[in-house]
């Protein structure tokens, strides 16, 4: 009898813990968890002073009156960052077509070793970035970069072939500095729809 009580307790506790741990059986991978948490429990991104490809120092994520769409890249990346760059080009085009003001596109590099201002400017050039909408920027030191990556939930792995492998997406930061949504790297329409509903 006591075994049955113990089993009932264990099963209840087990299912309950699994339910809590997976956000109600919604998120089974860290990537899903990151996206789920952006929508349901948006965290505040700390303000960060970044150096742009134009050489300016700008403070981001601190009560600016605009939404910021953020992607993480390194300029020598042959795979996901090029897809992200293309998505930003498309997004930039659509923002111009729709005449949507008050939206900032921001590519942040995590390759501080290689990506100086020249590399960032080349990346901006290659993807046709319009300075008034799209900035490419680098954090000022490793510590600041690590904090940013942690806040956004980006994990960068060393890779022998491509230098880095990393997760990513289109991250939307609200004017009050919260990470409110994450879309697939190619999901330009999803991101645009979200932004149009909010602005």
């Amino acid at each position: 009898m006591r075994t049955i009580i113990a089993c009932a307790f264990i099963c209840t506790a087990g299912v309950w813990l699994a339910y809590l741990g997976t956000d109600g059986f919604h998120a089974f991978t860290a990537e899903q968890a990151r996206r789920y948490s952006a929508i349901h429990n948006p965290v505040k991104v700390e303000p960060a002073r970044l150096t742009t490809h134009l050489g300016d120092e700008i403070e981001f994520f601190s009560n600016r009156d605009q939404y910021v769409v953020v992607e993480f890249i390194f300029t020598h990346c042959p795979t996901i960052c090029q897809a992200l760059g293309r998505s930003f080009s498309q997004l930039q085009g659509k923002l111009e077509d729709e005449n949507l003001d008050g939206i900032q596109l921001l590519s942040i590099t995590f390759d501080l070793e290689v990506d100086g201002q020249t590399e960032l400017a080349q990346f901006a050039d290659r993807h046709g970035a319009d300075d008034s909408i799209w900035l490419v920027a680098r954090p000022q030191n490793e510590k600041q970069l690590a904090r940013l990556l942690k806040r956004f939930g980006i994990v960068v792995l060393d890779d022998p072939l491509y230098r880095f492998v990393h997760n990513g997406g289109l991250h939307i930061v609200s004017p009050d500095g919260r990470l409110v949504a994450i879309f697939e790297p190619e999901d330009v329409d999803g991101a645009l729809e979200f932004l149009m509903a909010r602005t």
Partner: protein
Amino acid sequence: MWPIAPWLEGNMSRHVLIQLPLLAIAGWFIGRLIYENFRPALLVWNRHGAAGISIAVFTFIFWMIPRFLDASLSDPIPAFAKYITIPLGFGACLGASWDMAPAWLRGFLKVNFLSMLIFLAWLYAASPDQLCNNYARDEQRELAFRLVPIICALGVIFAIRPLFGGVPIKAGFALSCLAYLRKAGLS
């Protein structure tokens, strides 16, 4: 074990095929000690090993979810939880309960364990997504193919007794002893 943890966790195969089993095996021996020393309490609270096996099954399912494996690499609390729950929740509970479990339950667990491993191998091999942010997809696929021989070996080991009884195991043991003795005698 602290200095070697980063090495073990630096690669998905080492993490899943070496570290996790070692943690579980360490726990198994703790479980055997519990089984030998606390039998009266176990007979009340853990008849047929039901309670212990329930905990072990839930622990196993929990750590099979990629999210938690990932979290154990980036955050200290899940990492600590892993070092505690796999030896105690999985290894020790199984070790303390295994001999009390009826044969059908043991068979059921073995078969389910195998099918779960097959499912994982298939998932890691076929998933177009990188399931853990901390491990690249290549490592995920590598793990899948390393699981295949392990699954086959476990399948054979699990099948011998029900198919042929204990005889082949004893015969195999005797034969290898004989072979060893002959070799030792000749050289």
